[in-house]
């Protein structure tokens, strides 16, 4: 069964279907059903995945444009699989969370949900693409639905934020296009299939140039310091649901691209640039955290925490040890859940009070205990409290990096401490203390919102205590990737962070 095509096909047909439904409420229910079907299908696919089988599974390859050597090629390895799972789990949650988001601006509700499903199809496609050209097509095309979601349904500064987001990403993407074309031409294989291109570029100077073309695009996407300035604007202006997908999934395409394309296609260049990337990552970790502490706007604060977290992920990718690589991949998933939960709960809070400034809140815990409690759990996961999922991945990244790069790993640890400050201080200012007059009548989470938060909290707890199923899938894929970069873990190996607690 062509699993991956089916997943994308269901999403796209669902998107078309939503535009045909006349009634807004029905459109929402329809979207939810479609996204749940996609989730169910993905789970059905995932259980058939054999971690120690072929590298790429569920492969489908058809000629798309033979003249350019372009294929419609999709398949998943462990890394892609967990990221697709992350995407399809987040989409129904976001649909449920966005139930009333699109209504506020008197804009078309159906268009919003239709865009959401189009985006879902593209998110699956971008992770599943095994043809570099197809990856590029999804990489660029997925900007458009997100651009409209931010620009049409976002906050007061939405059009500025949307344009900034689009132009930054587009610029990076175009640089990558040059690199993609050059890769094809220099490789001279007449094909864009990833597996055929690996190892074709031997010349180190060429590798360096092509690496930069890809890397800058991914660094803007991820975003790494100093390419991050679009993210706080875009994430703060986007409706909460779109922000979750933007930070939770779209940005992961950047770090995923580094792991998949930068490392495997240009191993020598990747090694050459590693010190630079690690430095940028460490700066990002510390800078993002410090700036987050200073934010007065909740959504911007969460966005800056993500800049810090993406520093960790990029550091893990380029540390080039199995532990750090697996940790980084796991981090991508966990960060999606924990930051997603933070954005959504903050979104609920903002929806109630109508302000995104931290100063406008205080003592919410007393009037809305469930809201405050789940916010705390999500926050604690974000600051890597042991027992919550992000801890495992952050720990693996740090130990894995320490094996090779001691000083950066030590500096990065500061980020963990700063994380405690920004999260707990935000929590203290909004949830604790005397209840502010304006929030006295805030209702607690309603049934729909509980359904949104419950699965996320559950996932944070489950993967905090038992990340083994994920790691079992991720580890072989990361090992395989690193072996094609031809690095081995350094000898005096610190025992690799054991799975689970």
């Amino acid at each position, binding site marked *: 069964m062509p699993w991956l095509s089916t997943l994308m096909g269901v999403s796209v047909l669902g998107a078309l279907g939503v535009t045909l439904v006349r009634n807004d409420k029905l459109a929402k229910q329809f979207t939810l059903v479609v996204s749940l079907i996609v989730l169910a299908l993905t789970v059905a696919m995932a259980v058939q995945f054999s971690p120690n089988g072929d590298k790429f599974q569920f492969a489908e390859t058809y000629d798309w444009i033979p003249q350019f050597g372009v294929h419609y090629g999709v398949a998943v390895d462990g890394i892609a699989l967990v990221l697709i799972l992350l995407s399809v789990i987040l989409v129904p949650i976001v649909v449920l969370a966005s139930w009333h988001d699109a209504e506020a601006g008197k804009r078309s509700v159906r268009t919003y949900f239709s865009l959401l499903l189009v985006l879902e199809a593209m998110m699956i496609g971008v992770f599943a693409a095994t043809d570099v050209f197809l990856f590029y097509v999804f990489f660029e095309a997925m900007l458009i639905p997100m651009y409209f979601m931010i620009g049409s349904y976002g906050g007061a500064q*939405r059009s500025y934020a949307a344009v900034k987001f689009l132009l930054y990403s587009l610029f990076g993407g175009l640089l990558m296009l040059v690199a993609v074309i050059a890769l094809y031409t220099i490789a001279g294989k007449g094909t864009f299939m990833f597996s055929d291109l690996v190892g074709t570029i031997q010349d180190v100077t060429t590798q360096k140039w092509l690496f930069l073309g890809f890397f800058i695009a991914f660094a803007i996407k991820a975003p790494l310091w100093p390419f991050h300035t679009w993210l706080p604007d875009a994430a703060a202006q986007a409706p909460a649901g779109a922000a979750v997908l933007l930070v939770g999934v779209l940005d992961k395409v950047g770090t995923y691209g580094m792991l998949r394309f930068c490392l495997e296609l240009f191993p020598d260049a990747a090694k050459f640039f590693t010190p630079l990337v690690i430095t940028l990552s460490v700066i990002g970790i510390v800078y993002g955290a410090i700036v987050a502490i200073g934010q007065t706007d909740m959504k911007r604060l969460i966005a800056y925490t993500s800049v810090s977290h993406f520093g960790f992920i990029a550091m893990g990718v380029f540390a080039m040890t199995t532990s750090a690589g697996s940790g980084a991949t796991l981090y991508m998933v966990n960060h999606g859940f924990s930051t997603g939960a933070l954005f959504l709960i903050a979104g609920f809070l903002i929806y109630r009070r109508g302000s995104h400034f931290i100063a406008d809140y205080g003592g919410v815990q007393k009037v809305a205990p469930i809201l405050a409690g789940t916010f705390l759990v999500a926050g604690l996961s974000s600051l890597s409290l042991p027992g919550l999922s992000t801890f495992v991945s952050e720990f693996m990244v740090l130990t894995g990096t320490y094996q090779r790069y001691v000083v950066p790993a030590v500096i990065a640890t500061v980020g963990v401490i700063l994380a405690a400050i920004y999260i707990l201080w935000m929590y203290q200012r909004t949830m604790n203390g005397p209840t502010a007059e304006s929030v006295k009548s805030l209702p607690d989470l309603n049934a729909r919102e509980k359904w949104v938060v419950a699965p996320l909290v559950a996932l944070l707890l489950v993967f905090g205590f038992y990340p083994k199923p994920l790691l079992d899938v991720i580890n072989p894929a990361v090992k395989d990737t690193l072996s094609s970069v031809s690095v081995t873990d350094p000898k005096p190996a610190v025992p690799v962070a054991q799975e689970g607690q």
Partner: protein
Amino acid sequence: MNGTIQAPSIEYALLAPILVVFGAAIVGVLVEAFAPRYLRSAIHLPLTLLSLAGAFALAVWQAIKGVPTKPAAMGAVAVDGPALFIWGTILILAFVSVLLIKDEEHFVGAAAAVPGSAEEEQSLVERAAHTEVYPLLLFAVGGMLLFPASNDLLVAFVALEVMSLPLYLLCGLARRRRLLSQEAAVKYFLLGAFSSAFFLYGTALLYGYAGSVDLAKINQALGAVGGQDTLLYIGAAMLGVGLLFKIGAAPFQAWKPDVYQGAPTPITALMASGTLVAAFGALLRVFWVGLGGLDWDWRPVLYGVAILTMVVGAVLAITQTDIKRMLAYSSIAHGGFLLIGVIATGHTQAENTSALSGLLFYLVAYGFTTVGAFAIVTMVRDAGGEAWHLSRWAGLGKRSPLLAGTFAFFLLAFAGIPLTSGFFGKYAVFQAAVANGATPLVIIGVVASAIAAFFYVRVIVLMFFSDPAADGPSVVLPSRGTAAVVGIAALATVVLGVYPQPVLDLAHTAAQSLFVR
């Protein structure tokens, strides 16, 4: 020299598409002369559409029958693969543009009446109409067909004039903003005449150098004739000026925004698509067939022109507030991207084929999207005609989502976003250029694309993210013709963006035989 003149042999069958169009144009003139006023329109429209369709069918028939390997008409006209492909493209685009012109709302009733005068009032009352637009258009199209196929410089000059003169006239016939329209016509005429003079002088100098105006003979002379290099270089440069003017390449781009803005929008659509295609066809033939041996000299110049064109087009477009001027600058920028394809031609057969087929594909993709975009411009109207000022487009997405959505889609295609035809057009050209070692040019092209994306996106922001003006323009219910144009253009943009292979194959086949000499 015994006094007998050899009668020229003309392959009428090969030239049939051109002859059909010219024949229909002449019949159109007779209709103007003899048919009663109320009947003219009813005769012109089917005549024009049928002749274009017939010419297209003939061109297709020739392509199927097999492409000749020798120039026709005593070496004056080359009907080869690229020429047939370009003919097909021009004929389809012209057909589509005629569907737009059908809505005579766009044209003035009495062009000779002074704007605002009593005569103008009178003509409105009488519901006078210039039905001459149809034969004029057919003459222009005939010129467009001949221009890229002409294998000798004199024929090229004649074709250039046949193409341009009707267009000068048509530009001045806009029903609204008439002064602007007349200014556009005069400007276009003066600058066009100037550039034609350059072309002609270049032809004369090259004749002085090579002793022939035949492109193939000029090319043969390149290596053989010595000591006449001044004639050659100045001649080639002047020829280049004439051709680059028609393309609207910087620094010869100044006419484009004014003319595109002033001309009736359907004519703008025809110029932006058909004329551009024809001019690129001619440029390729002259520089490749005629001056191919000189490419070490012209390539660096075109390199600079391409860079300048892309940058000027993209940067100046940002400052525009008139939608048609903005599209004009966008057309300039696209001319720059297309020039990359001209430069990408190399020395091996494979490189040439890939560059040429990429260019041909780009022309098709760009042509359709452009016609569609201008068709939409005709539909957004204020009390005083088309709502030309960009600010009037604010919030259009709320009031007519389908129209605004389609226009946004065309803009994204201009910007070259994947899954639209514009992306593959750009990709094909860029790839050919990288393969030929012009990577720096491609990087500049990519940066220019990013700048260009900014102003396309700005229009989308206006339409979708801004609130509508209280007294915003109304969107007229499109006539069947206009609706068909938008539909065809949107369909072409989608299909070429998702499944470009058939057209790429066709372009590849057309390009494979390259230009006959």
